[in-house]
């Protein structure tokens, strides 16, 4: 599922694909936005009114592919970088994908790159055929030519010569779980709840067990929250620990008072006042 993986399903993509005739006719925008979010620049930016006006700003963009020329303006403005321009009209076994690419260095026209799919996996090679810069959007649009059968898969590219945006090795962690049993035991003594005073989760838990069940009581006995950050960092953690251990809703746990000054200021600073 998209909301679990961040990658749209094959079905979601296939439902968006234009008719074979339209695909053969020329470039078109592939809008890979599948979630109702409050956003509409694609529709308001299209000079051909191909992306239909939204009654409600949360609507999923709908596109009239008869009007779409594949100009790419929407791809440059989409805040989600979710619009790609596909051109399958060449008929030579290759097709091109235009990708909004906000990384450095930029590839050069003619450069060979690794074609990458929506999951970040390299699935083949690609050639950069155009790099379009925009002062206005600052989102370069990079067109790459790939094998026909990959055009609906390729959504990114890695530069060759170790100039990849991200080393893909990290994604292997999911496939290679390894157990390090020395690192498993959770130790409350090593968990710092109040950084200013150096108060550990163990101390807080012990106090809650002893019956100190308000943020103020814990603060008074342990000093947690009395330090220079004024409980900004630890306050919510202590409240949720109380809630967890006592079963009270967090909403009912009174935070400790918020006192001036909001940030520590030297005594001499206040001498400028004249108590009027």
């Amino acid at each position, binding site marked *: 599922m998209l909301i679990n993986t961040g990658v749209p399903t094959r079905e979601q993509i296939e439902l968006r694909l234009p008719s074979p005739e339209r695909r053969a006719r020329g470039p078109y925008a592939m809008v890979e936005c599948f979630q109702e979010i409050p956003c509409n620049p694609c529709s308001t930016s299209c000079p051909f009114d191909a992306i239909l006006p939204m009654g409600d700003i949360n609507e999923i963009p709908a596109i009239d592919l008869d009007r779409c020329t594949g100009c790419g303006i929407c791809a440059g403005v989409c805040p989600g970088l979710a619009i790609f321009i596909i051109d399958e009209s060449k008929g030579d076994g290759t097709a091109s994908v235009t990708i909004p690419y906000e990384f450095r260095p930029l590839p050069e026209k003619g450069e060979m790159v690794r074609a990458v799919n929506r999951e970040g996996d390299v699935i083949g090679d690609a050639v950069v055929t155009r790099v379009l810069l925009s002062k206005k959007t600052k989102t370069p649009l990079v067109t790459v030519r790939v094998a026909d059968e990959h055009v609906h898969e390729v959504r990114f590219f890695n530069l060759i010569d170790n100039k990849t945006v991200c080393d893909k090795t990290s994604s292997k962690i999911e496939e290679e779980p390894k157990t390090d049993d020395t690192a498993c035991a959770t130790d409350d003594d090593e968990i710092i709840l109040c950084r200013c*005073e150096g108060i550990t989760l163990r101390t807080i838990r012990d106090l809650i067990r002893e019956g100190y069940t308000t943020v103020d009581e814990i603060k008074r006995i342990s000093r947690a929250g009395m330090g*220079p*950050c004024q409980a900004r*960092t630890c306050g919510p953690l202590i409240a949720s620990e109380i809630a967890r251990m006592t079963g009270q809703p967090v909403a009912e746990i009174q935070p400790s008072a918020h006192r001036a000054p909001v940030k520590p200021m030297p005594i001499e600073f206040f001498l400028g006042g004249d108590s009027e």
Partner: protein
Amino acid sequence: MGDRRITDHPILDFDEGEVIHFTFDGKPMEGREGDTIASALHANGVKVLGYHFKTKRPRGFYCAIGNCSACLMIVNGKSNVRTCTAPLLPGMVVETQSDRGVPDDV
């Protein structure tokens, strides 16, 4: 550790500000105009800004905007300086702080 400075960014332009010389625990270091003390230290690969006065655990900044007080250091002899928001100035003598500090004149 000069590679921590971003020179080529797709969206932002970072001016090559004037070089500012300062020392950290006696070692000469370079920062840039516009740096805070903590950002300059970070650019030099320094993450440990001090040690907690009670637990002696190493301290580094957490929020970088003056909220969390984890970045206190001794600057020009003055303790408890919030280095994540204090601007870096030429010739500053910056030192790790491992105690609660004392007022200037004491």
